[in-house]
C-alpha cells in the first residue's frame, strides 16, 4: 500500500480516480455490512443452523450427483472401449447405450419449449387462500403431464430430469423434485416435436389450466422456444431393492 501511496503524490489524477473508487468501495462495504444485519436477525435462532445444514446438504447432493453422472459416463466409456471384438460384447454395448438414453441417464438436446411458472403477484383478497396464489407441486406436475400428453419425449424441472421414479412435492411454498430443493421460477424444459407448443396450447386441459391458475389466481405462466432445448441426465439412484428384472422371453407368472 505504501508504494502505491507514494506514487499517488507524483501523479495526482490517479490519486483522484483511486480515491473515488475507494470511496465507492467504502460505501459498498458499508451497505453490504448493513444488509447482512437484518437478515441475521430475521433468521431466528433455531432456523439459522437448519438453513446452514440444508445448504450444506444441498451442496453435498450437487457434488454427489455430479460424481454419479461422471462415474456413469466413465463406465460407459470403459464398456465401449472394452474388448469389443466379440459380437456379444458389441451387441451388449449397443443395447446398453440405447437403454441409457431411453432411461434418461443421458442428457438430450433438441427442439421443444420451456414453460415457466411463477407465483402470483396479485394481492390475496380477504377470505381467499394464500396458497392458491403460489405455484404448487400439483401445478408443476400438471404442466409436466400436459407436456407428456402433447408429445414431449424428455422433460426436466429446473434441471431435474423427470423419470419413471420422479416425485414432485410441496415443501412450504417451494418444491422437491427428485428430492432436490427447488424454488421459483420453475422452468419445465421439454424436448418434443417441432409443433409441441401448438399441440400443448390446443389441449383443452391446458387451456383450462391457464384459466384456473393463470386467470383466476394470477399464477404467471410463460413460454420460451429456444432453438435448442437441453434436458440434463438423471443424476439420482437407480433403486431396485425389491424389483427383480424379468428378462424378456422368460415366463411370467403373476
Amino acid at each position, binding site marked *: 500500500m505504501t508504494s*502505491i501511496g507514494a506514487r499517488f503524490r507524483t501523479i495526482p489524477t490517479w490519486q483522484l480516480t*483511486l480515491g473515488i*473508487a*475507494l470511496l*465507492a468501495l467504502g460505501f*459498498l462495504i458499508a*451497505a453490504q455490512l448493513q444488509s447482512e444485519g437484518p437478515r441475521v436477525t*430475521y433468521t431466528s435462532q*433455531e*432456523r439459522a443452523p*437448519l*438453513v446452514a*445444514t*440444508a*445448504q450444506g*446438504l444441498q451442496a453435498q*447432493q450437487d457434488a454427489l450427483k455430479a460424481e454419479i453422472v461422471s*462415474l*456413469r459416463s*466413465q*463406465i460407459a466409456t470403459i*464398456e465401449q*472401449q*472394452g474388448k469389443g471384438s*466379440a459380437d456379444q460384447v458389441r451387441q451388449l454395448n449397443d443395447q*446398453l447405450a*440405447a*437403454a*441409457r*438414453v431411453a432411461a434418461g*441417464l*443421458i*442428457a438430450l*438436446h*433438441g427442439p*421443444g419449449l420451456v414453460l415457466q411458472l411463477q407465483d402470483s403477484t396479485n394481492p390475496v383478497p380477504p377470505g381467499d387462500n394464500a396458497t392458491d396464489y403460489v405455484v404448487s407441486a*400439483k401445478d408443476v406436475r400438471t404442466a409436466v403431464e400436459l407436456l407428456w*400428453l402433447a408429445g414431449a*419425449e424428455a422433460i426436466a424441472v429446473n434441471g431435474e430430469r423427470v423419470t*419413471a*421414479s420422479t*416425485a*414432485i*412435492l410441496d*415443501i*412450504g*411454498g417451494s418444491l422437491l423434485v427428485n428430492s432436490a*430443493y427447488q*424454488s421459483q421460477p420453475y422452468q419445465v424444459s421439454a*424436448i418434443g416435436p*417441432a409443433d409441441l407448443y401448438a399441440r400443448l396450447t390446443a389441449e383443452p386441459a391446458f387451456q383450462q389450466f391457464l384459466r384456473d391458475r393463470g386467470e383466476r389466481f394470477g399464477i404467471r405462466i410463460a413460454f420460451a422456444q429456444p432453438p435448442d432445448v437441453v434436458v440434463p441426465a438423471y443424476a*439420482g*439412484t437407480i*433403486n431396485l431393492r*425389491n*424389483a*427383480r428384472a*424379468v428378462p*424378456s422371453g422368460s415366463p411370467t407368472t*403373476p
Partner: protein
Amino acid sequence: MRRRSSQLSIALVALILGVLLVVQLRSQNPGGGLEGLSAQELTDVVGNLNTRNEQLRTERAQLQAEVQQLAEAEARGENSVGQLQSDLLRIQAWSGLLAVSGPGVRLTVTGPIPGLAVEDLLNELRNAGAEAVSVGGIRVVAGTVVAGSGGAVSVEGTPLGGTFEIAAIGNPPSLTGSLTRAGGMMAQLRATLPEVELVVTPVDRLALPATTRTLTPAHGAPRL
C-alpha cells in the same frame, strides 16, 4: 512503468468493486430460497436431503466398484459380458423396458376418479420409494399419463373403467404407510372424492409388464 503498475492497481480496485457490487445486489435480492421456510419445513428439507444423500452415496459406491471391476477385467484382458448384462438388466428394469417382479402393494380404485387424482396417488407411491408401478396392467414409465375426467380416465389410450388396480413394487410397509397415513393422499382423496373407494393390500409378489412405449427419443439427440 509507473503508469502500468498504477493501471494495474486501478484495475484491481475496479475488480474488487465489481465483486462487491454483485455480492451487494445478490444480498439485496435473496430470492425464494431456504430463508423463507419455517423451522418445521426446514427440518423436512434436511431430513429429505439426508435420506437422498445416503441413497446417492450408495449409488456412488456401487458405481465406483463397477468402475474398478471393469478396469480390473480389462487389465486381465477379459471381456466384461457379465457386468454388461447386469447393467443392462438394471437399467432396463428401472426404466420400464423390462418386466419386473417383487413385493409391493395393490391399490384397488372404484368409482369416478379423475386422472389428476390418480397421478397424485402415483406421485405419492414414487415418493414412498416405489420402484415400478402399473395402472390397469399398463406399466407407468416417463411419459405415461393417466388422464381424463372422473369416470372416463384412460392410460396410454386404454380406458380404465369403473374399477382398476394400481400395482407398485417396493417395500410393502413403506408403501402402505405412506398411502394410509393421517392426512396422506388416501385421506385427502376420501375427503374430496367421497364416492371413490380405495383399498390397499400388501402383496408378496407382483408381476409388472414392460412398457409398450418407445422410450427412444425421436426428436432429441444425446448430448455427450
